[in-house]
C-alpha cells in the first residue's frame, strides 16, 4: 500500500508510535526518575568530568535503557583528541 511512502517521509504507523512512547513511559514508571532529573544529572556529570579531562558537553549523551526488566543508565562521553 502506501508503506513505502510512509517510509520515504519517515512517517510512523500508530503501533510504532505506541511502542516508542511506551518505552519512555515505562522507564520513568519503573525508576521514578523524571526527564528533568536526568538533564540535571547530565550537567553535573559533565561538570565533574570537565574538572579532570577535556570533553565537548554537546556530544555527551546520557540515557536510560531497558535491559529485560532492569533499567540501565548509559553515558556516552566522547573524549577530545589531544592536539
Amino acid at each position: 500500500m502506501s508503506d513505502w511512502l510512509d517510509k520515504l517521509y519517515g512517517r510512523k504507523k500508530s503501533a510504532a508510535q505506541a511502542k516508542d512512547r511506551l518505552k519512555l513511559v515505562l522507564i520513568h514508571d519503573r525508576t521514578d526518575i523524571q526527564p528533568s532529573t536526568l538533564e540535571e544529572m547530565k550537567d553535573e556529570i559533565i561538570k565533574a568530568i570537565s574538572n579532570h579531562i577535556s570533553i565537548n558537553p554537546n556530544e555527551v549523551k546520557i540515557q536510560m535503557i531497558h535491559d529485560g526488566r532492569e533499567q540501565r543508565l548509559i553515558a556516552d562521553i566522547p573524549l577530545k583528541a589531544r592536539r
Partner: protein
Amino acid sequence: MAARIITITSGKGGVGKTTATANISVALAQLGQRVVCIDSDIGLRNLDVVLGLENRIVYDLVDVIEERCRIRQAMIKDKGFDDLYLIPAAQTRDKNAVSPSDMIALVDQITGEFDWILVDSPAGIERGFKNAIAPANEVIVITNPDVSAVRDADRIIGIIESEQKGPARLIINRLNPEMVNRGEMLDAEDVLDLLAIKLLGIVPEDETVIMSTNVGKPVVTREKSIAGQAFKNIARRLMGDEVPLIDLEYKEGIFHKLSKIFASGGE
C-alpha cells in the same frame, strides 16, 4: 497434594481478568481437573455471571471469612462439571472486609482437595489486589495490546516481583490480527519486548466472547470459537503441555518469529 494457586490480575480494569479466569477454569475442568475459582473482587463481583451461576449464590467469600458458614456451603458447583466450583465475592461489602491473611487461611482449607485454585483479582494495586495475590504461588498478568493496559501491566508486574510472587506470566487478550497487520495495533512481540516477561498465550479479539458471556456459558464451551481455542491452549500450557500459538493469519514471517519467541519463553 496441594493445589496450584494462580491469581489472575492486570492493573487496569476491563482487560479480561474475569473472562480469562472463567475460561481457564472451565478449560481445566474439561481436562478432568478439580478446580475452584474464587472471585476476590468484593463489591463488584462478576465471575458468577460469566459462569452463569448467579442464581445459585447463597453464601459468599466474606461469609466464609466472618464464619457465617463453612467454606463448602459457599462453594457453588458448576452446571456442567462436577469438579468445578465457584466461591463468589460479596456484593454488599468492600475490600476492607478481607485481609491477605484471611485469603491465605481460606485457600488453605481447600488446597488439599483440588488441583487448581484460580483467584480472580480486582483491578488496581491497592488492598483488593494485595488480598488476591496473597495466597498465590503463581501469577498471570493479563493485558490488551494498547498503551494504557500495557503501562498498567508493567506496574503490576513490578509489584508482583517486589512481593516475591514472580515471575508472572502474560496473556495478551483482544489482539486484532488485522489491525496488527496494518501497523495500527501493538504486536504481541512488541508487548513482550516492553514487558519482558514470559508469554502464556495470546487471545484474539472475537465476538463469541461477548456472546458467551451474554448467556453465561464461557467461550471454551463453544466448539468453533478461536478465542475459546486460545483459552484451551492456555489451560494445556498450564498443565505443562507444549502447545504452539494459534496461527492468527499474521503477515508472513511474523507468526514464525512469534513461535520462536514463545519457544524461548519470551526472553
